[in-house]
């Protein structure tokens, strides 16, 4: 059979629809890519898969019959990694379960399952880092605001954490890389997209009058809590890799 390239819309349901189709058409030689995937193989047999909630629901339902919530969660988080090729690993995971009709989701000696577990851990780590390293700035209109650019698409995963924690303040977390954000308006969280005019520079006029003062206090707290005779740069960098420094108020120079 000819190699088939399935193109889906980048959603989890879309991927599950692909799995449905793989079974329906008994495909054996295929690859899966999200929209926007460029490759110049004109002869490949490309097909756009339209996300179908009924089909994706059936795939998931069947998977859940054999496995657990935990397994679904692990797969979903690995999916959010957006790592090229993760789709195929996920499909193999599903097929392994469907083939054996039993919960093998902890069978780490099966490579795709181990791989998914490893990616899941990476995504989990990034989620955790965002929960830790996000620094809100208070704006004039009483919204606590932050921009992030996480390695993986963790916004859907951190929503609950921030909603529970900051239930009595308005906040926005904006993913610059993926150009969408979450806005909590004291009642519910809604997705938003923003237009930044001069993207790179922060406009100090939009900050609350005390904001810079609190940033300075935090920075001096951070500096004072260091014990010089214990300095251990390697350990420090292991915990806070340099690429995260841009988030951290304590690591930036405040004018």
């Amino acid at each position, binding site marked *: 059979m000819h190699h088939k390239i399935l193109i889906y819309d980048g959603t989890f349901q879309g991927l599950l629809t692909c799995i449905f189709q793989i079974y329906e058409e008994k495909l054996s030689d295929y690859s899966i890519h999200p929209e926007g995937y460029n490759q110049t193989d004109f002869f490949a047999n490309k097909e756009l898969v339209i996300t179908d909630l009924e089909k994706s629901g059936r795939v998931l339902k069947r998977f859940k019959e054999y496995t657990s919530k935990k397994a679904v969660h692990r797969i979903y988080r690995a999916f959010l990694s957006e790592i090229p090729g993760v789709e195929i690993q996920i499909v193999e995971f599903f097929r392994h379960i469907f083939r054996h009709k039993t919960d*093998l989701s*902890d*069978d*780490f*000696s099966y*490579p795709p399952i*181990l791989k998914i577990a490893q990616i899941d851990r990476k995504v989990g780590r990034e989620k*955790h880092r965002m*929960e*830790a*390293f*996000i*620094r*809100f*700035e*208070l704006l004039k209109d009483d919204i*606590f605001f*932050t921009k992030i650019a996480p390695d993986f698409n963790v916004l859907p995963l951190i929503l609950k*954490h921030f909603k*529970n*924690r*900051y*239930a*009595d*303040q308005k906040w926005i977390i904006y993913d610059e890389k993926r150009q969408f954000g979450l806005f909590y308006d004291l009642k519910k969280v809604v997705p938003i997209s923003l237009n930044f005019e001069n993207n790179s520079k922060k406009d100090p006029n939009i900050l609350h009058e*005390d904001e810079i*003062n*609190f940033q*300075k*206090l*935090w920075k*001096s*707290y*951070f*500096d*004072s*809590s*260091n*014990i*010089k*005779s*214990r*300095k*251990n*740069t*390697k*350990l*420090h960098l*292991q*915990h*806070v890799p340099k690429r995260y420094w841009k988030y*951290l*108020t*304590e690591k930036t120079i405040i004018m």
Partner: protein
Amino acid sequence: MNFDRIKEKLEILADAAKYDVSCSSSGSNRKNTKNGLGDSSGMGICHSYTEDGRCVSLLKILLTNHCIFDCAYCVTRRSNDIKRAAFKVQEVVDLTINFYRRNYIEGLFLSSGIFKDADYTMERLIKVAKKLREEENFNGYIHLKSIPGASDELMREAGLYADRLSVNIEVPTVSGLKLLAPEKKHEDFIKPMEKVKNEIIQFKQEKKFIKSTPKYAPAGQSTQMIVGATGESDRDIMYSANYYYQQYNMKRVYYSGYVPISSDPRLPTITSQVPMLRENRLYQTDWLLRFYGFDIRELLNNHHPNLDLDIDPKLSWALRNQHLFPVNINTADKMMLARVPGLGMRSVYKILQARKYRKLNWEHLKAIGVALNRAKYFIICDSRLWEKKDWTANQIKSKIIKTSSSKFRKDYSTQLNLFDHAS
């Protein structure tokens, strides 16, 4: 708020508080209620790390560094010539709330020098916590220091607002305490600890029958010991840690390598190094006690009063007990697997899961992430190839050291020299 003045106080009072190494903000179960601020029901989060690699999770400050005592090992001691400052209750509340809202911290760790007397000081600490809970509807984490000698009534009240309470033993032996803090009595440390322990038990009992029983110090108690200030052995330290775990249901004991802060002849000289490697070995030992099912007497005893610095305590134990190995990966029980050098609890869990489906061989173990360079001398698996040779403990040790790169290697060589001089 007068930001300049607050900044000055913050610098002094954070600097004085930094020698308390505890920064844990986990173990509580306080949920956000009534749409208030904060939640400490999850695992604690480290929001930053100091340049020495320690977790920053709480705003850790002293209420004041005025103190009537003169403990030799403490920067805040009254004879020390330093700047003194004191926060107002409301200032600490404002700082905590503003830092928390910006996602800088998980909560507050408030300690204090003892001004006037123990009760007067404890009362002020409680006031801060009470204000945070009742006026600010704050559900973040609060760790209060139990002031040695504070009354039972105050300790009872403190637990109603705090998630965790701690008294630092600091000096692990009674004789050491006499030498370095002669004005302080051992009983003064024990009394609040005992009270808090009993209250925790009692509140838990009541909770079983009356659901509306309030929380009392849900994250329990902890304590800290200074390492390397009084010439104590690792055995002294860990036996006393073990005692506090058992006797007072401590959630955590912290070990803090002595940072030289004084030229007092009773203490190591001002130029001596912080014993970081030793501190690390003590934490590993602590870990083995709490999670790996070891008994302290297996790790430290009269024949073996100090931990090895060049290898970790589990490997050291395994080399002293070679008759228990090799362990069969495919059949050994969980606790025995946990005793194999190179196998952490995560690997143990993965092995237990994976071996349900097939017999595991070296390839499987490698894929799972087992540190085979250590483990291979102590295990057999589904393969004919294994270290059949009867290596002696010393041979295994040097082979393992050669193949592993210790993050402390450099420190180790300099500190080893230090120890040679000392002995």
